[in-house]
């Protein structure tokens, strides 16, 4: 297949948090050269880009408000972003997020790391697993690790779902391994109600 087509409204809807819905684009098309996803918020005030940094991935990110209106947080600043607005973050350490100011706001996000060939991020699998039943979520995370290889984020989220599935020993083993690979995940685990008891 040399090409594929989909309308934004036809993409899968995966609820994430605070009204944010992930609409997988890269996974849908099998894109290998860059990261790209859409996010929607049906209600005013709902999250349309979750607050985060790109410190782990080192990605530059471009957000495009395709429909509706959002209020972006860029570090300590805020900016109004009606449809057609582009918001670019060159520094992975800058905290970013966005809240919908109109119903049905859609934001397209593109990301990759300068100077490196793109590899998909483990969070795609963790987002997909977020709303799944525990055993299905464990299978999704294992698929991610098989596809991408061992990574701290992948193992961290695998541990989370293993704990949900009652696989406490495996969860502990994978969490310890995640922290070995990236000690920063120790902080995440310490702050997570579910995982902190494993440490």
């Amino acid at each position, binding site marked *: *297949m*040399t*090409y*594929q*087509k*989909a*309308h*934004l*409204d036809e993409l899968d809807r995966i609820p994430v948090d605070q009204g944010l819905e992930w609409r997988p*684009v890269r996974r849908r*098309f*099998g*894109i*290998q*050269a*860059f990261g*790209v996803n859409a996010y929607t918020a049906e209600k005013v005030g709902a999250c349309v880009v979750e607050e985060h940094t790109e410190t782990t991935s080192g*990605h*530059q990110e*471009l957000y*495009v408000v*395709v*429909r509706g209106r959002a209020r*972006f947080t*860029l*570090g300590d600043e805020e*900016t109004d*972003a*009606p*449809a*057609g*607005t*582009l*918001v*670019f*973050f*060159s*520094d992975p*350490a*800058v905290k*970013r997020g966005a809240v919908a100011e109109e119903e049905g706001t*859609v934001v*397209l996000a*593109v*990301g*990759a*790391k*300068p*100077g*490196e*060939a*793109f590899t998909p991020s483990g969070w795609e699998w963790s987002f997909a697993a977020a709303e799944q039943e525990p055993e299905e979520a464990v299978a999704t995370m294992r698929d991610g690790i098989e596809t991408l290889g061992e990574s701290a984020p992948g193992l961290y989220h695998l541990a989370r779902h293993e704990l949900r599935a009652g696989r406490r020993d495996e969860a502990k083993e994978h969490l310890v391994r995640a922290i070995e690979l990236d000690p920063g995940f120790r902080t995440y685990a310490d702050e997570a109600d579910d995982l902190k008891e494993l440490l």
Partner: protein
Amino acid sequence: MSYRATHLDQIEKRDTWIPIREHFGIGAFGTNAYRAKEAGEAVIGEHSELMAKHEELYAVVSGHATFTVDGDEIDAPAGTLVFVSDPAARRGAVAKEAGTTVLVVGATPGKAFEVSPWEESWREGQDAMALYREQRYAEAADVLREAVQRFPDSAGLFYNLACFDSMAGAEPAAVAASLSRSIELFPGFRDYAREDSDFEPVRNEPAFEELLEVTS
């Protein structure tokens, strides 16, 4: 500046091209938008990605377009995404509404992104083409002769330099040298040259014939 917000309408356009990557200084992937003024106008010029080998994702941000990919027509109202994985696929789009805007993202799988030479040398290319259209071939060639000093790996600039020199009546050896460099950078130009009427003045010259004899 580690972050910036801009509306598409605030970026200075170059014909239909809205140079997003350059505006922000993005170094991780290629991205641009294109806006057609009128219905019926090309919003994405027909092309392949054989040179850059990019995967490309097109997003219709506003308006309505008809894409053509390898002869298949694709109706694309606002919100449509068209992903072309095969660099060899011929693709283009025509606006069905005035102001139709298409965002495109591109990069090569398995390879760190590099800015495409056409993007960096766009101004020189446009200036040279304007002179070419006025049949001021020698002047057009001079613009590109200077440009290739700055962009020595731009297959397209070398190819057009060969075309313009040919039309200007330059020495066949000079035409062949530029064409040879363009083919070295992108072998597909050998086939283009076989059909390109710009090379009629040198078509029977031994240096030119020798270049095109090699099976591509």
